[in-house]
């Protein structure tokens, strides 16, 4: 019998999570519906004029994406904590940080990626010009990755707490503010016809930093919460 390597264990975790997401696609769709709803609130509250909405569209997209990804974090560790899968992961003898990275990536595939694919439609509806849609998708793709990594830390810390979801927002939102700044800035530059290279590169750098530094923190948080 061959020993399972960390990489194949991570692959198994990834596949398991995606399969679960596929079986419970109703839950996965909830943050997406929320994303569209929040984006709908702004035209109703501000103005139906596309020219006016265009001025704040980058902010609308990013605030909606941030709130939706916050909602999606509920799905990350909750059921694993409830049914004991988390204990099995801790006892698996595999590096927990790698498994946490796999779970985070699976979460991004199930929650972040659909949001990115949905974003051009929402963006068009609030006045983002066609030429800026690519930048919008790229900035959201990089940004939701960072949010998944940061959110996983918060989600692991608040496991099993009463009013955990309210607390989750309080923990994660301040950490997510730089992502919001650069993400919205990239879309804004692109709407005005400028190059969005700078903020996009900064987002990519932050994503690399988050992917390398977050997994040990997630692992530590999971160990604390699972005791």
């Amino acid at each position, binding site marked *: 019998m061959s020993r399972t390597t960390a990489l194949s264990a991570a692959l198994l975790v990834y596949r398991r999570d995606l399969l679960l997401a596929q079986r419970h696609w109703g839950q996965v769709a909830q943050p997406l519906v929320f994303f569209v709803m929040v984006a709908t609130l702004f035209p109703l509250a501000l103005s139906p004029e596309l020219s006016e909405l265009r001025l704040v569209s980058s902010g609308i997209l990013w605030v909606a994406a941030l709130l939706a990804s916050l909602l999606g974090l509920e799905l990350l560790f909750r059921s694993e904590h409830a049914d004991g899968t988390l204990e099995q992961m801790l006892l698996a003898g595999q590096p927990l940080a790698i498994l946490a990275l796999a779970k985070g990536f699976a979460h991004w595939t199930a929650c972040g990626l659909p949001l990115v694919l949905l974003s051009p439609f929402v963006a068009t509806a609030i006045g983002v010009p066609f030429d800026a849609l690519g930048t919008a998708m790229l900035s959201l793709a990089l940004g939701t990755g960072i949010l998944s990594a940061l959110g996983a*830390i918060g989600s692991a*810390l*608040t496991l099993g*707490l*009463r*009013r*955990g979801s309210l*607390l989750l927002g*309080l*923990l994660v*939102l*301040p*950490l997510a*503010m*730089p992502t919001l*700044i*650069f993400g919205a*800035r990239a879309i804004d530059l692109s709407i005005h016809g400028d190059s969005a290279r700078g903020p996009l590169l*900064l987002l990519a750098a*932050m994503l690399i*930093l988050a992917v390398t*530094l977050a997994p040990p*923190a997630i692992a*530590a*948080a999971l160990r*604390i*919460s699972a*005791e």
Partner: protein
Amino acid sequence: MNWGWFHKLASPPHAYRIAGRLLPWFAWPAGILLVIGLYGGLVLAPADYLQGDAFRIVYVHAPGAWLSMSVYATMAAGAAIGLIWRIKLAHAVAAAAAPVGASFTVLALATGAIWGKPTWGTWWVWDARLTSELILLFLYAGVMALRASIDDRDRADRASAVLAIVGVVNLPIIHYSVYWWNTLHQPSTLTKVAKPSMAAEMLWPLLVMLLAFTLFFAAVLLARLRAEILLRERNASWLRTELAR
């Protein structure tokens, strides 16, 4: 080298006694320097030729802002020591420091807003310093809320320690991103007013106030640490004999 004294520090009875003994050595100099600094700042220092007497709030604002950040560093250092070497007393230091740091942050924000009214004409501008101070307050709020919502003390200690360390890693990113965001959106004339190069007679009371505030923080931290130890060790037998003395 003999590390016995160091390990002794980590035991609650010793820490409780040492904190009690050190407390007046910080509290009294803090009080005296506070009086000297306030007198120097409010009476001896000349009025600013641009801002008049309004600039004098810097003697409270700048020390508050300085401590809001260094208390976070203290808290994160305590959290890291507690997490790595499993020293419960270090967690107690972190727990004692958090509300103090949050209070200094509120002080810096409030005095910043009061200062903004005469110099900028509004209570609040989205100035980079004020904004990053506000985000710092959110970080404090997160750490304190997480600690408050976990009943098990050991888990509360370690979970909020992880969050404090994550926050410290993020602080530089938040700080620079806010500066970057701000310079793109606002003319930089406003921030020039906020940091005038100071004359010597204006500067020395500020330095005295910085020292006084830091000593004050040390004294408050010691007092709060004693209270925290009392709370955590309320069933311990050493405490019974200690308090009976």
